[in-house]
């Protein structure tokens, strides 16, 4: 048990320091995997409480715009700009939690989708504030090196994973799962659904906005179609579902698997459109064949193996009291 934690800690440190030694090409990969991991953890946290979001790009976009605007208008540097990014994600998510009230499942999902689209339209229609459809560049003088952004992304991903792990040890985790399973019954046990809903969505929103805020410093350019891109929403749920929904390791494995798969198909297949098709087909089939995701499937498989092989040490230990 202890040894496992040491390995995790070393892997995390290695991931954060990787940009220092890896060739610059790797920065792009670290950024994509790290951002997706944050998004996936954020989406999975909300899903764990029964809140299926179809609009995580809303938080991503809000974070991106917040970071960009405080940099361009107020001259805030990279690190400082991430604080308003997270704040706006948390505040808007809390507002959504209150406004959507007891909406759950598909109804909540649609409300989130509408939010994301609505924000995109607002961003287009307020050009003097957001730069409008033409988009806007972030102040070049303030931009840190790609290496720094990659390291911060990796650090944020590690931080989010630690927060998710810590939450899984607290009563909060019990309330979320109970609400996902049956909100009515949960309420009779003393759980105030609104309170936990606000808490879990704020946290989820802050994480997704942080990812968006970091990302804008890497890409340098933002317009409403990039900020509130449906692609972000889709990836935010494909990664945890592919990795293993409602698990701790799922979003992390899923982020590696999703980006890995997209890279492999791109290199192997070559032709742009066709490689995307292959990528999509593999994703659909993986999710169809493994509804519990990679991690969930591995768990059931290893449990079954342990049960069917009587010579395994754990099985014999259980058999002899």
């Amino acid at each position: 048990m202890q040894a496992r934690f040491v390995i995790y800690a070393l892997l995390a440190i290695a991931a954060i320091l990787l940009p220092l030694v890896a060739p610059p090409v790797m920065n792009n990969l670290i950024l994509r995997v790290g951002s997706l991991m944050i998004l996936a953890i954020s989406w999975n946290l909300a899903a764990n409480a029964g809140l299926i979001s179809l609009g995580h790009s809303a938080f991503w976009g809000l974070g991106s715009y917040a970071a960009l605007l405080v940099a361009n208008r107020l001259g805030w540097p990279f690190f400082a700009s991430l604080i308003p990014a997270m704040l706006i994600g948390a505040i808007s998510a809390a507002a959504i939690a209150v406004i959507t009230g007891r909406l759950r499942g598909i109804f909540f999902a649609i409300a989130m989708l509408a939010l994301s689209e609505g924000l995109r339209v607002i961003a287009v229609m307020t050009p003097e504030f957001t730069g409008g459809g033409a988009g806007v560049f972030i102040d070049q003088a303030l931009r840190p090196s790609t290496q720094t952004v990659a390291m911060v992304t990796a650090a944020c991903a590690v931080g989010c994973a630690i927060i998710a792990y810590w939450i899984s040890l607290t009563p909060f985790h019990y309330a979320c799962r109970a609400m996902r399973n049956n909100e009515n019954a949960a309420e009779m046990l003393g759980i105030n659904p609104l309170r936990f809903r606000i808490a879990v969505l704020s946290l989820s929103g802050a994480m997704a906005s942080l990812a968006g805020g970091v990302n804008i410093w890497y890409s340098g350019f933002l317009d409403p179609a990039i900020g509130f891109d449906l692609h972000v929403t889709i990836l935010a749920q494909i990664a945890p579902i592919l990795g293993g929904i409602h698990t701790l390791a799922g979003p992390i494995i899923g982020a590696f698997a999703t980006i890995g798969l997209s890279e492999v198909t791109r290199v192997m297949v070559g032709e742009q459109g066709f490689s995307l098709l292959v990528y999509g087909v593999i994703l659909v089939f993986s999710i169809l064949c493994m509804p519990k995701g990679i991690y969930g499937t591995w768990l059931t498989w290893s449990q079954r193996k342990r049960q069917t092989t009587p010579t395994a040490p754990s099985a014999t230990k259980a058999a002899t009291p």
Partner: protein
Amino acid sequence: MLDIQNLSKRFGGLLAINDLTVSVKKDQFLGVIGPNGAGKTTLLNLITGYYRPSQGKIFFEGERIDGKRPYEICRLGIARTFQVVQPFPEMSVLDNAMTGALFSRDGMTIRKARDRAMEALEMVDIAHQADVMAGALTLGAKKKLELARALATKPRLLLLDEVMAGSPQSDIDELMELLKRIHANGVTILMIEHLVHVIIALAQHVFVLNFGQELFQGKPDDVIAHPEVIESYLGKPLEALDAEA
């Protein structure tokens, strides 16, 4: 302990509960019977805050509780089981019971909640299934789990909505023993039940509900002998029913 005064609940044109006054005394085992649609479950939903009364007041230990939310009612010391069992299927039996312990009052830690949950599971005799996913339990075990989860909140008043319904006779006997034990441990019980012989065996006082109103209340033996109760609910004197069976 629980005082319901002139309570009414209207759903559109239907008066589900009509000017009902009833009280549960401390340490009492009150049975509530009545035909289908008499308003029994509505009454529980009103007490536990799932519905707001159209009229009337509900007091628990002197404090007015109508209009409070279910989670607030729970924290005052009222627990309930549902007619259709509602365990959390994707959580283990232990985690289900721990959820009951964790949020029913402030300052609970995971460790304390685990002890209390195990106590409740032992009480209903499903502690050996603590690690099983609740969704995989049999109906009988789910009912016991629902009871354990309610008990883990350490209630002073326990509301039971047809816990026996759909159970085989062996389970019914076991559940009856269990309820006696819970009552003996100082929990006041209000029990809704269709099985009249269960109510007669367990309850000290029986309240008969019909069309949202009181039809009769009294000792179990008086209730089954009362002509109006027989007409509206039992259909025939109980001896005749027994003879048929």
